[in-house]
């Protein structure tokens, strides 16, 4: 930045607006802030030139501004002089000037964010009345739909039998209950047929038809199963148990 233009007009205006404007440091800060100039780039001569031009333009002497400017300019010269004399050594005034500048910038950013947050509030008011909804409950997938390799089955069985071998439990040696000598299903059908033909029958009479112990066992289990499956009714008459077809089992 060779010769920045210092827009004094803006500074002076804001100076009039700001009540807490105070001392030469503030004016410097204002100036630097408004013009986005770094301290080291300040050329007092060019500020002065521009200032005088500004005053000429105003065609009047504003003593208050003039004195404020004089104070500012002298303070700046003081800082510059110290900077030159002390070389790289830290200059207290320079540091405070820098931190003040940072603070000023922070405040300015916060100001603009505050203004934006007011604008946001206005936007929020405009966007009121939009309602969203929660996710629609999904039907769970009931059917098993993963795909497997058929070999997984064989492998699972191999594993199992391998384990079984260690425990000496080969498939052939699995003790299964002996099959019933008389099929229960056949007996059940026989009983249903008989009940359909001859109506309610005494339990003893049904059993009396059995020609062997195993047939009797099958008849007993058939009755129990038919009863459990709600195919027949059992009624205690006092003298014995009457077996009848449940309604709807007549056909």
């Amino acid at each position, binding site marked *: 930045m060779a010769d920045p233009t210092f827009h004094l007009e803006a500074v002076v205006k804001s100076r009039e607006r700001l009540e807490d404007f105070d001392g030469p440091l503030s004016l410097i800060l204002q100036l630097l802030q408004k013009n986005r100039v770094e301290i080291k780039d300040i050329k007092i001569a060019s500020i002065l030139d521009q200032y005088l031009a500004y005053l000429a333009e105003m065609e009047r002497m504003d003593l208050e501004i003039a004195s404020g400017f004089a104070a500012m300019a002298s303070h700046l010269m003081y800082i510059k002089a110290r900077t030159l004399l002390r070389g790289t050594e830290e200059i207290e005034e320079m540091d405070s000037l820098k931190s003040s500048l940072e603070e000023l910038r922070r405040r300015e950013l916060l100001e603009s964010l505050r203004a934006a947050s007011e604008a946001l509030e206005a936007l929020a008011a405009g966007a009121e009345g939009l309602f969203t909804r929660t996710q629609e409950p999904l*039907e769970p997938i009931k059917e098993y739909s993963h795909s497997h390799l058929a070999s997984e089955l064989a492998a699972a069985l191999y594993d199992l039998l391998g384990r079984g071998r260690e425990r000496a*439990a080969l498939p052939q040696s699995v003790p299964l209950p002996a099959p019933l000598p008389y099929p229960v299903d056949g007996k059940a059908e026989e009983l249903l047929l008989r009940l359909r033909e001859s109506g309610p029958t005494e339990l003893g009479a049904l059993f009396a038809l059995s020609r062997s112990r195993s047939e009797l066992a099958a008849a007993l289990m058939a009755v129990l*199963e038919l009863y459990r499956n709600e195919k027949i009714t059992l009624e205690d008459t006092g003298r014995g148990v009457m077996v009848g077809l449940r309604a709807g089992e007549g056909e």
Partner: protein
Amino acid sequence: MEIDGIIESILFASGDPFPVGRLASLLDVSEAEVLEAAKRLADFYAFEKRGLRLLRLEGSLQLCSAPENGEWVRRALDARKPPRLSPAALEVLAVIAYNQPATRLLVEQLRGVDSGYTVGLLVEKGLIEPCGRLDVPGRPVLYRTTAAFLRCFGLSSLEELPPLGGPGQGSAEAEAGAGQTVMEGFEDGARP
């Protein structure tokens, strides 16, 4: 007053079924008018093939996504598939697949552990189903595999189950044979 749009907004935001009576009193119209508006909306959705449907359930109205897009919705929202079969479930399934029809008792005797829960789970998943009872005391239920089972394992019939090496064969040969069998099963099963 244009009540159709208001009803649509309310049903949208509500999610749950919303009573017709409450809509009527809210909008200060008769229930018949609410139902007419609902009918217009429902017809409109159906006619325009929109992604929404308006259901009338008892005395309530509900908006829902169109059932014909159910598969898309499920995929989009990543509906959880039921978990894959556990090793235990696979084992039970294998016992039944190779010995069907088989009782729970057989499964338990082979595995040495109670398998009632797993058998029930497989029935629930539709991979096995009861198919009568064994003619022994206690008349235990017999299970067999289902068509869904064949589908999941890429089989077109039970005959395509990978053959098992017989337990009577020498174990080394059996295992070598088994390896081969498994490979064949893989090829057959995976590619119809």
